[in-house]
């Protein structure tokens, strides 16, 4: 189903759903006079207001958030020796958080982060260069809490009243994995409690083969798999461009379409003004000719029966001439309204008309309507030059729009980081203030009760979706 069909169906559905006008509204009077307005939240002002996010949903609403933490720990080689079993040596491990966004973390034997990798496009937005730098060498549990906070700042967490999440853990070395799971769970829960958002953290374990399979490593070879994750984290921007090429091409297409339509609308508006000006110029020329003709040969206007001129000066007082001059003035005023430049009343109208006729005869308007973006861009220089030759001011809007049109996807991709950075900044503007505002603190007991209420019904995402606590739309 394409967009047009979607729109058609939607309008049909809304025809049935939208309520008819009530009698109360029908009978309400129209207030015609200006009334003194109270300062209220009903102020109608289309200028941007200070943004302050508030959750849209209320009542028994819960968002399902899934945090899957997959841990893969390589079982360390056992050191030689006889007698007591030595404590396992911690090796590099793997942790995955699926909040949406989805982030993969590699950490070393000290449980400190060595690499962070984005696992979906929302994580591309989340993982700024600054954040990635900050996360390196951080204890993995603290890193997870920081990532959750950053996700909240961008609106991915905490916008709903309650959340339920699942942690997936890959265990190799049980001691290390248990330690990382325990510390990470506590760090996340503390972060959420501090913010006053109810987000339950659940843990699921996977085996080492799970990660090896995803990264093309030999079965059970977690070291190779972990290295594979780290390697991909290192060439982030190249992968980002490659991964998002399709989306960016789509985005570029939409952007170009919007800019194209915008440019075309502006240029067509300018061309419409040209047409109107041309018509008025023709009229002005016609009137000018009549005035000249009358002053040269008044009798041609009036004929012998209407001859009233006594001297060569009296024709100036003639009402008909005055009327014609007034008409001329009105036409020239009209031309001035349309164009920013003044039209010199004594200018050679013929030359001006020739210039406008040329523009119209080039049929720029229908050309613009039928042009593709590439054709329009080719035409832009010539259209803009043609308009400037006619003393039509090219609005800065056209020039600004031209500057933003990328010539190729490569051009567009060059700005990939700025595009994503822009999205990041906008999300932060919208959501950060709300996420970090003070909320009533809740106790550990409150959290535990909430946790039990969620997990009591939680078994799978599907089952959670069927739960009365989570409306169907959130599945």
């Amino acid at each position, binding site marked *: 189903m394409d967009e047009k069909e979607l729109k058609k169906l939607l309008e049909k559905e809304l025809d049935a759903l939208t309520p008819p006008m009530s009698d109360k509204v029908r009978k309400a009077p129209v207030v015609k006079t200006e009334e003194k307005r109270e300062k209220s939240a009903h102020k109608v002002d289309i200028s941007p207001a200070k943004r302050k996010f508030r959750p849209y949903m209320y*009542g028994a609403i819960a968002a399902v958030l899934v945090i899957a933490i997959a841990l893969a720990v390589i079982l360390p080689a056992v050191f030689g020796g006889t007698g007591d079993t030595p404590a396992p040596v911690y090796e590099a491990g793997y942790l995955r958080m699926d909040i949406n966004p989805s982030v993969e973390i590699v950490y070393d034997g000290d449980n400190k982060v060595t690499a962070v990798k984005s696992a979906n496009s929302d994580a591309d937005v989340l993982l700024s260069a600054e954040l990635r730098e900050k996360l390196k060498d951080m204890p993995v549990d603290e890193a997870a809490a920081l990532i959750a906070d950053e996700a909240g700042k961008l609106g991915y967490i905490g916008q709903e009243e309650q959340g339920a999440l699942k942690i997936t853990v890959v265990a190799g070395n049980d001691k290390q994995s248990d330690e990382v799971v325990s510390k990470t769970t506590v760090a996340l829960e503390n972060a959420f409690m501090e913010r006053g958002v109810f987000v339950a953290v659940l843990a699921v374990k996977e085996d080492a083969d799970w990660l090896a399979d995803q990264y093309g490593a030999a079965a059970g070879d977690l070291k190779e798999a972990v290295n594979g994750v780290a390697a991909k984290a290192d060439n982030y921007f190249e992968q980002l461009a490659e991964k998002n090429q399709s989306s960016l091409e789509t985005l570029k297409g939409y952007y170009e379409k919007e800019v194209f339509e915008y440019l075309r609308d502006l240029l067509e508006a300018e061309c419409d003004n040209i047409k109107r000006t041309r018509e008025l110029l023709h009229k002005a020329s016609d009137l000018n000719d009549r005035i000249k003709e009358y002053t040269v040969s008044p009798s041609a206007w009036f004929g012998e029966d209407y001859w009233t001129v006594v001297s060569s000066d009296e024709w100036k007082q003639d009402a008909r001439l005055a009327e014609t001059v007034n008409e001329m003035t009105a036409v020239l005023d009209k031309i001035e309204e349309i164009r920013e430049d003044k039209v010199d009343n004594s200018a050679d109208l013929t030359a001006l008309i020739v210039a406008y006729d040329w523009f119209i005869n080039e049929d720029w308007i229908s050309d613009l309507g039928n042009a593709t973006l590439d054709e329009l861009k080719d035409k832009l220089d010539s259209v803009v030059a043609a308009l400037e030759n006619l003393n039509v001011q090219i609005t800065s809007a056209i020039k600004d729009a031209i500057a933003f049109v990328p010539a190729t996807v490569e051009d567009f991709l060059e700005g990939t980081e700025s595009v994503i950075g822009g999205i990041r900044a906008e999300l932060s503007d919208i959501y950060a203030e709300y996420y970090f505002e003070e909320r009533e603190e809740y106790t550990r007991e409150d959290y535990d009760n909430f946790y039990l209420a969620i997990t009591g019904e939680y078994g799978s995402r599907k089952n959670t979706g069927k739960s009365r606590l989570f409306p169907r739309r959130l599945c």
Partner: protein
Amino acid sequence: MDKKELDLCLQEVAKGDSAAFERLYKETSKGIFAFLYGYCKNYHTAEDLTQTVYLKVKANISKYNAGTDARAWLFQIAKYTALNEIKKVKREVVATDKQTEKAEKDSYELQDSPVFDAINSVLDDRERQIVIMHVLWGFKHREIADMLSLALGTVLWKYNTAIKKLQNKLREG
């Protein structure tokens, strides 16, 4: 009804033309209702709020500046009406079982409206706003970006994502 026609219609409403007001309601109530429903997720509340919006239109029509963007003016009234309702409801008791049942009943009423239901079930709030503003209200993406104080790239991205989500959802049946 395009922007210019809507502007003229509002000017006529301001003069007390009741036929113009009927026309206005007919042309714009779908977009208003859809927008409000996205906020409250309750059919009856959205119904009431829709009527409230048009009462406010009549009460504030003298403040409408002829020649400006009539859609934006109506949109602002709808938005503030919705936000006021949210503030009011937040002060009320958290949903009980009965209210949950009522919400479930409201969902049932949308079962014959798969597209509208999909918009309200699979899209996040921002995606839903953008889709409704573009598809029903006819705002261009650039205008939406200005009105919601977002970057144009963000609006385009979210719109693209939203359409894909809707298509997938409707394909699932």
